[in-house]
């Protein structure tokens, strides 16, 4: 409902309530009363008084990333170190734009993967373990300790050009290319990147029309698994 429609509805409801009050008074005078239309607030002042007239708060809100760090909990320390190294390698700071580490990308991906389905979780866990194992096999060190040249030797053979919705299917190439895409997306979509872009006088990037849930079903049982049919179809 538009705000002005909402206001109209409230005003109409108030008028109806006043009318009902007058009716109740006359009914009381006639010797019978109606129950109140709804629960009465325990106090002399209606709880919602004044909200219709209030002006929107001119509050410039922050996105938490601007002042806080994401607490990591999904990847273990060696996996976190490997992911950080991968982020630094694939998306370094360039031309004044923040790199993946500046944008908090490893920490964000820790969160994102932690709430993802099993398939991407497994891909990351196995992919990071594979990077460490390859780094040990070739350079006798953790992936997180490799130089740019050493890390490039591990990654480059698996880089592919690919099209949307069709990433490589071979496991190592799939991990390298999907992780690269995730790292790039998380970095380019960060507030740090946006601020740099605006500082350069460019139009704000990544701005679009966001849809809130439309008339959401608040009665819905969240994450209820699909229920089996326990009665024949048709009318109850």
């Amino acid at each position, binding site marked *: 409902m538009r705000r002005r429609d909402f206001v109209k509805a409230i005003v109409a409801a108030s008028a109806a309530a006043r009318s009902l009050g007058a009716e109740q008074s006359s009914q009381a005078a006639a010797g019978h009363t109606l129950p109140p239309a709804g629960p009465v607030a325990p106090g002399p002042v209606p709880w919602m008084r004044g909200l219709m007239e209030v002006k929107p708060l001119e509050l410039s809100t922050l996105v938490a990333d601007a002042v806080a760090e994401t607490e990591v909990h999904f990847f273990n320390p060696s996996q976190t170190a490997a992911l950080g190294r991968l982020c630094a390698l694939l998306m370094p700071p360039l031309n004044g734009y923040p790199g993946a580490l500046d944008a908090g990308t490893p920490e964000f991906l820790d969160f994102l993967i932690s709430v993802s389905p099993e398939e991407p979780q497994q891909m990351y866990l196995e992919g990071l373990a594979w990077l460490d194992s390859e780094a040990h096999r070739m350079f006798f060190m953790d992936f997180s300790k490799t130089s740019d040249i050493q890390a490039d030797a591990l990654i480059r053979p698996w880089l592919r050009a690919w099209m949307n919705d069709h990433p490589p299917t071979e496991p190592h190439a799939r991990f390298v290319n999907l992780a690269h895409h995730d790292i790039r997306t998380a970095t380019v979509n960060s507030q740090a990147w946006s601020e740099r872009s605006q500082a350069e006088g460019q139009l704000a990037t990544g701005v679009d*029309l966001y849809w809130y849930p439309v008339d959401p079903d608040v009665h819905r049982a969240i994450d209820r698994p699909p229920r089996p049919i326990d009665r024949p179809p048709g009318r109850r």
Partner: protein
Amino acid sequence: MSEETVDVLIVGSGHSGGMAAKILTEKGISCLMLNAGPVAEVHKDTEVKPVYALPFRGFKQPGILPHVFQSNEFNANTWADEKENPYTYDAARPYNWVRVRLFGGRSLFWSRQSFRLSDYEFKARSHDGYGDDWPIALADLASYYSRVEEIFRVSGHADGLGQYPDGNFVADNSPWTGSMQRMVDAGKGMGIAVCKARSSMGVDGLASSVNLLLPDALRTGRLRAIPNVVVRALSVDRNTGLVNEAHFVDRLSRREMSLKARVVVLAAGTLESTRLLLNSGLANSSGVLGHYLIDQIYGAGIACSVPEARDGRAGSGLMGGSALVPRFRNIATKAGDFIRGYALNLYSSNGAMDPRHFAAYGSELETRLASYYGSGFSAGIMGEVLARFENHVSIAKTVVDAWDIPALHIETRYTDNEFNMARDAVDTASAMAEEAGFDVLTKNYDPNPPGYSIHELGTCRMGDDPKTSVLNKWNQSHDIKNLFVVDGAAFVSGGWQNPTMTILALAMRSAEYLADQMRMGNL
């Protein structure tokens, strides 16, 4: 308690339901429209936001909408939630069922590509011996197409090709850009026509039921509508065999309700209309209800770069624009390993390249992206999927939706005909691009999963024989004469064309027939 019997009950508010409502109310018939979801209002339900302020920084919320490849974090709340609206399929044969339940349905969000079917589709069996002809031909639908094209303000160019029928267009006489002209020339040398795309301009960019159809119906004062009600089943009068009642659930409160109607028009979207009939146990004396599910192949294609446009050298007039290569296979000659055909969408881009098109990272990637900026050119397939009895939907044995309505089980797969067609499309597009002097950066031969095109069609196919079809040529049930299905479920074959114009033309034609039948007292 209401004792009202509505004249015509329309289930669904998208393009087909909107067209039925417009035609019927303009002919003096009162309609009640039920829609499973709410009315969206952009000024109330949206806000312009930077991507960094979204909960998942522009990534889709993990685990949500796994089959809606088209969704992103900005628009995720507009698609039907798969947890509320589940469906089942064999894990080895996934199906992307993409739905919108907002008032206006999928007419709110579509690509605007606006094509007529040709007699290569309507009379496909007569042409190549496979499948079935429609009970109608292009000539039966041509005048309706013209009226629809006028309402939707379709821009296009008359090309005089039998497989790409001309229409009532807002003339597009714009010149080709340089890159597109090179593809036109390359196609000419290969006997392949590159044509102007055809697109609904609508009004203010929107070409939806909610701005082009429903306002006309509402102006008559004869259309009422109830949002947020999910129809569970239809029932019939045992004495007459006519459908006379709809049973529905309030989406938010779960209150079960019913209402009576003289005529029911289903326009809930192909598979929802069929699901409703299957759950009702109606209109299936033929045994083909739910069968012959069709869609179109999408996803296979190529990404290129135009060398002369790199490093800021494009200037004006080289890049930009789109074009369409209408079907050219199996028209005058026969392809070796598939029947029917495909179209190609061509796009020339002035903007940034997709970094996924380069096997590079870091500074090397950034250098490439900067150099290739404004030089992108791509081609993608829209291919016909053959109608097969075995591609079908049925009621899932074990799963219900959030309103305890049995869900749909979808069984469909592509065969060599579709895979060979996709391969031919990619190879042909690559050959054209190379002939035009473009660099092909990457190509993909694999179609997206069935359903991805959002062009699910069939499952209530029309035909002259009640033993082999669900509907007659007027979209009217063979079994129940006061029951009509006016959405894409009526299709006999799908062709390569975006089906929206055909759905609209069929709905218009069916609604006029229905109005005439009501006026004559036959319904």
